[in-house]
């Protein structure tokens, strides 16, 4: 079962031994309804921007959906990982198969606390490790926008995970060790654009999920933020996108923004791999937001 498997089994065992303390320290901590009672009026246009920045389509739309069909968040993708296969659920506004009956507090609990509607820990394959940075207002707007999307009655398969990864309780231990909302890099004297870029990259854009290397338990090596990682799907790499990156190191901020808009590098090589979907989502953002992302990528420490 590999190092990760043994380590997680150990966590499960520790959990059983120190049951009381473990369960308390690692309990799911959802929001309560009152936390969002005064959330205010949503801005649906901003919600749509958060939707594209967050890339929900890449995991929750049907895998062969193109164009407007991508807005049907029916689920249907099989997300292969070293820990087993995840089937991202239906999150369309359908009241039975989707999340049509969820409250804003329940939605925020999934997005920012990694807790499901029944109080269970969610897997970080839903990148709440990044979405935790999103502001409450952006979560509210995103939720309101998603309510305007088409409903789907599709019911998705159960995740196919071997023991011990199928034990949601163990996720509490993982979250205890790795889940926090600390800034991933500390930048002094950051301009407004760099701060906006930091928010988009570390929060909704979840760029670190692919571009930052992980330790044997699947937690980020934050000291190597965005420094590149092996391709989780097999051969090849997810490149280093810090100013020290083999390719990006030579790009101007304008080049990075153009890549996110068009998919073309400065020498007109074309985007590939899992970045293709990310780039398509980024093309929906405003030019200022793409420039902010580029400014942040130029400002972070080189690796």
């Amino acid at each position, binding site marked *: 079962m590999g190092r990760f498997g043994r380590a997680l089994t150990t966590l499960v065992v520790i959990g059983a031994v120190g049951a009381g303390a473990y369960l308390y320290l690692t309990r799911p901590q959802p929001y309560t309804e009152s936390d969002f009672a005064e959330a205010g009026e949503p801005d649906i246009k901003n919600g749509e921007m958060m939707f594209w920045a967050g890339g929900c389509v890449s995991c929750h739309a049907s895998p062969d959906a193109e164009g407007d069909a991508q807005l049907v968040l029916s689920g249907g993708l099989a997300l292969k990982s070293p820990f087993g296969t995840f089937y991202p659920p239906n999150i369309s506004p359908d009241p039975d198969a989707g999340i049509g009956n969820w409250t804003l507090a329940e939605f925020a609990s999934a997005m920012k606390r990694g807790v499901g509607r029944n109080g269970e820990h969610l897997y970080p394959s839903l990148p709440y490790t990044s979405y935790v940075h999103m502001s409450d207002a952006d979560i509210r707007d995103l939720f309101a926008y998603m309510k305007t999307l088409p409903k789907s009655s599709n019911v998705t398969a159960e995740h196919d995970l071997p023991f011990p990864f199928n034990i949601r309780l163990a996720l509490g231990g993982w979250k205890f060790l790795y889940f926090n909302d600390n800034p991933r890099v500390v930048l002094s004297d950051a301009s407004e654009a760099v701060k906006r870029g930091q928010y988009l990259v570390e929060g909704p854009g979840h760029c670190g999920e692919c571009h930052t290397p992980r330790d044997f338990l699947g937690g980020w090596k934050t000291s190597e933020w965005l420094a590149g990682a092996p391709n989780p799907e097999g051969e090849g790499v997810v*490149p280093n996108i810090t100013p020290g990156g083999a390719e990006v190191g030579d790009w101007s901020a304008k080049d990075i923004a153009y890549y996110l808009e068009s*998919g073309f590098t400065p020498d*007109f*090589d074309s985007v590939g*791999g899992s970045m*293709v979907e990310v780039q398509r989502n980024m093309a929906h953002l405003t030019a200022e937001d793409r420039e902010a992302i580029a400014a942040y990528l130029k400002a972070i420490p080189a690796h």
Partner: protein
Amino acid sequence: MKLRLAVTALALTAFGFSAFANETSEMREKLMKQAGGAMGTIGAMAKGEKPFDQDAVKTALEAIAETGHKFPDYFGEGTENLGDEASPAIWENMDDFKARSAKLAADAEAQLAQLPADAAGLGAVMGAIGPNCSGCHEKYRLKKQ
């Protein structure tokens, strides 16, 4: 003596293979760079960095069509592991890979048949060609650095 001959033969075969492998890999790279250069020509005009030049657009589209026609010739049996950025998935889906390359050529030829008269028409050309590039790179190209 015999042994020495055998060793020489082996060495020659190995040498021959590596020369062949290099050539195959170089041709893949050359054709793709040709497509990239051509897109760069069109892109610079579309962005207004260079003045519009219809002849240059025509030459660029011809180069892209040529890439589309020739590229699959360099993905025969036994060329799976040349250490470049071609994904093993190509050989598992050879028909799809060839169809994508053919579609790149066909789309470039369709644009040649209705060359834009000014820079404003270049956005549509980029839009018609670009998704062929990213679509194939999404499935069949593996970044190595």
